[in-house]
Structures are given as C-alpha cells and as structure tokens.
C-alpha cells in the first residue's frame, strides 16, 4: 500500500481543490503526489506530461467529451477517473467514470474509493517494486562498480546490451541509486565486492 500514487485534481475552484488536496495528503496508508489542475485548457497538457494514476475531475470541465478519447490522446490509458460531483448531474455524463466523489463524502469514504481504484490498477506492480536485487542484478552491480561498460558487461554475461540497460534501469528503480559511485557504496556495504576490485 505504500507505493507513491500520483493523483491529479482538476476543478476550477481553488477552495475545492485545496480542500480535497489537503484531505488526500492526510489519508493514512496512501502516499500521494498531487498535481493541481485549475483550468480545462491545461488539462490535456498536464495529463500528457505527468500521466497520473488517478484523475479526480469536475465533470463539467470535461463536458460530453469522451474520457476514453482523452486518455488516448494523453497516452494515459491506465489512468482511473473519478468524478468530483458538486451539483445535480446528468447520470449519462457520470457513467463513463470509474468512481464518484461527492462534496459531502467523509475522509473514510474518500479512502475506500481510492483504495478500491488503487487495488484495481496497481496490484501487479506493488510486490515487484519492493523486491531486493535478483542474483542477476547483483552480478551487474558488481560489473558496474568494477568500471565495466555496458558492452563489456553484456559480453561477459552473454546478454545483449539492451538487456543490460534494462537491468540497470531496474536496479536504479529498486535501490534509488543511479550513480556508479553510489552503487560502489552499496556493493561494498553489502559485501558484493572487495575494495581492491573497485574502480576508484
């Protein structure tokens, strides 16, 4: 449950937006990164740029345009959409949303709705994200801290350079360490290599 969730909040009212944002930030067990969208004009641009996991939007901002089409043009096909309902609205308009939030929802309601949507979209990735390094990834870390290039690593481990790059990307994501000198610290501390193996 502690994966970082990117939520875009789109409404023209700053009072509603900030109120909702403040509730979202204080939901226990959900870590959120909030993107604030104030106008219909900036909606597409911001969605394309940030690709949020969830969009909470005032349906009036979208109108009768198709959400599916919007997801396609912004390339956020997996994004879940929640309607932020503040007035009586045409049910037809609301049907295309994954969930609805009313202005009078409690913070528990909000939590349950987000949790449900999050479970829908993220189940697969959570367990994978939190793993420590695989044996193969450790081998690659060792090569990197010895100062080998991707090409050399590929030749040594009988992999393609493309695969090596994918592994390195996964290592960076799991450890949150990108630099070679950072990986060196990791490798020494975890006794993957000795100091005299390292390319200092």
């Amino acid at each position: 449950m502690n994966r970082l969730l990117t939520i875009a909040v789109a409404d023209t009212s700053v009072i509603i937006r900030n109120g909702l944002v403040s509730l979202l930030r204080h939901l226990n067990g959900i870590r959120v990164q909030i993107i604030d969208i104030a106008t219909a004009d900036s909606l597409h641009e911001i969605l394309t740029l940030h690709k949020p996991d969830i969009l909470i939007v005032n349906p009036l901002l979208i109108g009768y345009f198709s959400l599916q089409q919007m997801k396609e043009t912004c390339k956020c096909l997996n994004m879940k959409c929640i309607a932020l309902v503040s007035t009586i609205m045409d049910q037809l308009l609301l049907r295309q949303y994954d969930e609805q939030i009313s202005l009078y929802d409690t913070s528990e309601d909000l939590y349950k709705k987000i949790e449900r949507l999050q479970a829908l979209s993220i189940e697969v990735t959570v367990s994978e994200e939190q793993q420590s390094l695989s044996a193969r990834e450790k081998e690659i870390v060792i090569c990197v801290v010895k100062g080998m290039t991707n090409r050399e690593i590929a030749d040594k481990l009988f992999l393609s350079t493309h695969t090596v790059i994918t592994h390195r990307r996964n290592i960076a994501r799991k450890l949150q360490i990108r630099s070679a000198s950072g990986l060196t610290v990791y490798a020494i501390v975890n006794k993957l290599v000795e100091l005299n193996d390292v390319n200092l």
Partner: protein
Amino acid sequence: MYKSGKYRETDKMSDLICDNYPMVLVLNRFGIDLGFGEQSIKDVCLLYDVNLCTFLTVVNFLVEKVSNPVMNIEQDFSLEALISYLHNAHAYFIDFRLPHLREKLVGAIEGCPEDVRIVIIKFFDEYSSEVYKHMSYEETTVFPYVRELLKGDRNSKYSISIFSKRHDQIEMKIVELKNLLIKYYPGPGNHLLNSVLFDLFATEEDLVSHSHVEDFLFIPAIRELEKRGVKI
C-alpha cells in the same frame, strides 16, 4: 510577488524569520545580520542597503513554495541584487555547507569498516566537485553574461536558454547518499550520524529551493530582459 505576496514591507523582520526559519539563510545571502530588534522588513532593508523589492520577491517566492515561472516581476526588482544573492548562496554551499558536512560525516562514520568509510567519503567528494562545477559555471559564464546584458551589451553569442537547458538537478546525488545511509549503513547508530542525516535532508531542501529561485525567478527575468533589451 512583492506587493501581493504573503509578507509585506511593514511586517516585522523577526516575525518573518520566526515563522520560516530557513529564511535565516536568505538574510545571510542578502548580507543582513541578526539583531534587528523590532524593525520592519523595510527598515532593515534600508539599514543594510538591500533592494526591498528583490528581498521581498525572493522571500515570498520561497515562503509560498512557488514552482512555476514568475512572470509578473515588478519594476523595482533588481537583477544585480538577485545575482549577488545567488553568488552568496553559492559561496555558502561551497565554502561552508559542504566542507562542514564532510567533516561531520567523517566523524560520524568512524565506527565503520575502513572500506565502507573510503567509498562513502569518495562518494561525498565526487558530489562536492559536481556541485562546485555546477555553480562555477553559473559564476563564470551566466552571471557575466547577465551583467553585460544589464549594461546594454547584447553582442554576446550566449543566451539564457542555453543555461536553462543545461541546468541540471544538483540535489539528486545527495538523495542517494541519504538513501545509502538510511538503508545500508552498517555501523552502530550514533548521534552525530543522525545529525548528518538531518543536515542532508536540510541541504537537499536548500538546494532544491536554490534551483527553484534560478529556474523560476532568475531565468524568466533574464528572458524578459533579453526580449526587451533594456534594464529591468
């Protein structure tokens, strides 16, 4: 930012600092000393001959955590004053913050095996030299360019978009060091190490807001200057 911001010239300087302690650093960078008693922001700025508009713009920018380009920069804003602020911030990081942090770090990891100590310090030194490179580029290339612009000299081939494109995030590696210590530090915990961690968190924040001032206040102001070709 100056007239419409959270803090105004009539507010007490001490209130500003007590409500937002990171602003102590801003005072330093504008050359203002502590001990200003009950004086207002305006009076203190007058006393130290600091451009009031620039001071308030920077303060409100930081306090309100602005993270998009500031377009409505007022007439009285002084780019020369902002450059001197940025220059003092660089001097602070390079001459004080990083060397001081290094010294503390060396003491904090004394209980570690030698190989771990060596690679951690090496990591830190690499990081320091990256920060140094990053900042001296601004000192030797960007600031002189802006000073020429301010003098009305537009012959230079340089433009602020070059800077804006190559301006990278210098806080990323300090996040790595923080992660390494938190997740993998092999020695016994100690008070000094905790203090180093607190410093790392604070330095990260400080570097992020420093870059924000450059990206969202400094660069837009220069763009405006380039467009108009006159002093703002």
